[in-house]
């Protein structure tokens, strides 16, 4: 359309401008309404994730500790022992650290890179402290004499590897891998691969919990959607009742039920299913985690399914039957495809919640029922390796996003109906 026949309002303004002006107030109003939430999300969600990310790759501590060493190492090719200059600047850096009494941190950090670093640094510290190093002579020769490791090029390479301010070591560690001395990604020895087992177990438990929730939730949701109002309300309350109870209380009640002297085992013994002296263990293993998580996450499956099923007209099933479909065919060809948006929403919700579940597996999971989130908590609270915890947290987040992406490709997020 040319500019000549632009539509004008009666006061001569172009229609588009006039429309924008008229809508502006509404737009500002709408933005102001969402602004608190936006701010809240920014502060409590986006910002912490950014913080977690920097923390997980941050390796600047050592970079700041050995500025001269790294500067002088730039010219060193790492094939043979470094030249005098490197030894000297390392000594100078270390001396400052020793004076500030923060040399211990360097030892810890370098020991992670190469075992034995801590002890040879302590020897160096004693020499530095007692001023036994003559700065007018070759520092290299004096340091080499302190311990044979100072003559080992591998130790110097280990220092050089820590030069970049950022590292992906934590991520590799989360996958039971590490950077070897040549800078290649390598697997840790088989008996030390604990994280990979945890990741797989987390996926497995989340997957099965989702399947169990689906198998149990689908009929419940169907009943809820088809029963007369007075019964469906009661059933709805039963489904929602767990929501009104503390998560901790619910998990604790599962502990009461499932323990070896618990109610379920008592019942099994009473009806003669198992002998009194061979009561099965249903807690502190995967069984406990499955049972408790399925129960706790069930409402998240039922509610989206219910809201979708509620919109499906009962006459569709009738039509399917009257057209000659057996009840099964009518269900499978007509009813089931129409519930897919609800299934998608429910499964995605349950799976994502399950994959990061913490309290329940921690309490009823035991050793074989804990998940990756328990490991993250362990590093947050016990080892205080926050950067590793951050790295694993981000890996979990990435995993969830990947699953979401795959889901979007397969089913389409537009098809999700949460209510």
């Amino acid at each position, binding site marked *: 359309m040319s500019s000549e026949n632009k539509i004008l309002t009666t006061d001569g303004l172009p229609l588009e401008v006039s429309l924008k002006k008229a809508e502006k107030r509404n737009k500002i109003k709408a933005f102001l309404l969402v602004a608190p939430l936006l701010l809240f999300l920014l502060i409590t969600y986006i910002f912490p994730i950014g913080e977690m990310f920097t923390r997980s790759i941050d390796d600047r501590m050592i970079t700041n500790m050995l500025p001269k060493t790294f500067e002088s190492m730039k010219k060193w090719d790492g094939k043979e022992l470094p030249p005098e200059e490197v030894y000297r600047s390392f000594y100078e850096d270390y001396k400052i650290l020793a004076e500030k009494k923060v040399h211990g941190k360097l030892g810890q950090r370098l020991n992670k890179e190469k075992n034995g670093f801590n002890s040879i640094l302590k020897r160096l510290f004693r020499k530095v402290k007692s001023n036994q190093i003559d700065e007018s002579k070759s520092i290299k020769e004096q340091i080499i004499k302190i311990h044979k490791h100072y003559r080992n090029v591998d130790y110097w390479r280990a220092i050089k590897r820590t030069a970049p301010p950022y590292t992906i070591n934590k991520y590799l560690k989360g996958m039971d891998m590490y950077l070897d001395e040549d800078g290649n990604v390598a697997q840790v020895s088989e008996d030390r691969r604990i994280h990979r087992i945890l990741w797989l177990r987390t996926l497995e438990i989340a997957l099965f919990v989702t399947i169990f929730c689906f198998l149990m939730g689908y009929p419940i949701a169907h009943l809820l959607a088809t029963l007369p109002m007075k019964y469906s309300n009661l059933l709805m309350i039963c489904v929602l009742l767990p929501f009104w109870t503390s998560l901790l209380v619910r998990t604790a009640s599962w502990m009461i039920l499932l323990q070896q002297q618990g109610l379920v085992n008592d019942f099994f013994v009473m009806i003669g299913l198992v002998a009194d002296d061979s009561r099965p263990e249903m807690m502190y293993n995967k069984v406990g985690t499955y049972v408790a998580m399925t129960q706790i996450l069930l409402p998240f499956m039922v509610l989206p399914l219910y809201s979708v099923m509620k919109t499906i*007209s009962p*006459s*569709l099933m*009738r*039509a*399917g*039957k*009257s*057209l*000659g*479909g*057996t*009840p099964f*065919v*009518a269900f499978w*060809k*007509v009813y089931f*495809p*129409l519930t897919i948006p609800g299934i998608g929403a429910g499964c995605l919700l349950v799976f994502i919640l399950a994959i990061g579940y913490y309290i329940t597996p921690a309490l009823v999971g035991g050793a074989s029922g804990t998940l990756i989130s328990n490991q993250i908590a362990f590093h947050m609270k016990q080892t205080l390796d926050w950067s590793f915890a951050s790295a694993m947290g981000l890996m979990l987040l990435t995993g969830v996003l990947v699953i979401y992406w795959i889901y979007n490709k397969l089913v389409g997020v537009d098809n999700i109906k949460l209510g």
Partner: protein
Amino acid sequence: MSKNPEFVKFDKVDKSYDGKVLVVKDLQLDIAEGEFITMLGPSGSGKTTCLMMLAGFETPTHGEILLDGNIISNIPPHKRGIGMVFQNYALFPHMTVYENLAFPLRVRKVEKDEIDKKVDKALSMVSLSGFETRMPAQLSGGQQQRVAVARALVFDPAVVLMDEPLGALDKNLRESMQYEIKHIHESIGVTVVYVTHDQSEALTMSNRIAVFNDGKVQQLSDPAELYEKPVNSFVAEFIGENNTFNGEVVDIDKDKCKVKLNNSEIFANPISVKSKGEKTTVSLRPERALINPTNKMDNMFTGKIEEVIYHGDHTRVRLNLLGSSEFILKVPNSTSNLELKVGEDIDIGWNSIDARALDPK
């Protein structure tokens, strides 16, 4: 081809949902092969329940339903081979028009070529050829309705049930669909059981109409008879318009009776009154009363015009007549152009044969 006059038979059927109230009472109804029968009645009269029992979604509490001589009460819906058009069309929203129509054929394991042929034929029957790949949501209400009709017919069912299929359409579309369904019925000769609460729809389309009220068939007859000769005051009231007089029979003959109203007497046709002293409601169609009657009619009165309402093709006149101010007259809009003014008196007359003395209301 000899038609079976009892193709569908309701035999003493009762139906109760709660064990306290009968929604269908002792229903006795025969439907002939190839017939277009309409169940007409106000909501809650049991007509849809009858349809659902025939389709198999409800079971009769008592009695049997027979289809072509076989008892079908215990046959599940999908084995009855009865096509059904639902009130809200019930098209499968996740399937294309083609898939919707192919559904009944696929579950019957019909060959692919045969399916294509039948779907094609059914779609051209409702003049929707070329719409195969559309989704139901992309169709207008009328088009969805036609797809629903085509789907109910595509597998050549012996009987097609229609549960107020035109209820959701606007007036013009509804009327044209009425003719369309009627023509489809005429061209393929399928037995149709149609449920509606719209009397003009029933009159337009049906071979016979069963008027339901209170769980019972009040009258079963062809449209003309239903309108001209209602057997009781419910039918007279429900079908078309109607002026009523409540009174008492004071004299009765074979084809004429005298009914005493509050302060006058009229002659009527005794339908459900038998003897003197009975209470009765006399029903008279508005178009049967004439203004300024020239020939001799046995009921002649003078009334005062209370209201004149212009309706385009006719004018409705409300009169104060015989003590009632609700007497309605229909004056066709003809060239004679009567001058009708509110407050004027006019002479009215009707034949006693048109005034039917029915059961008292």
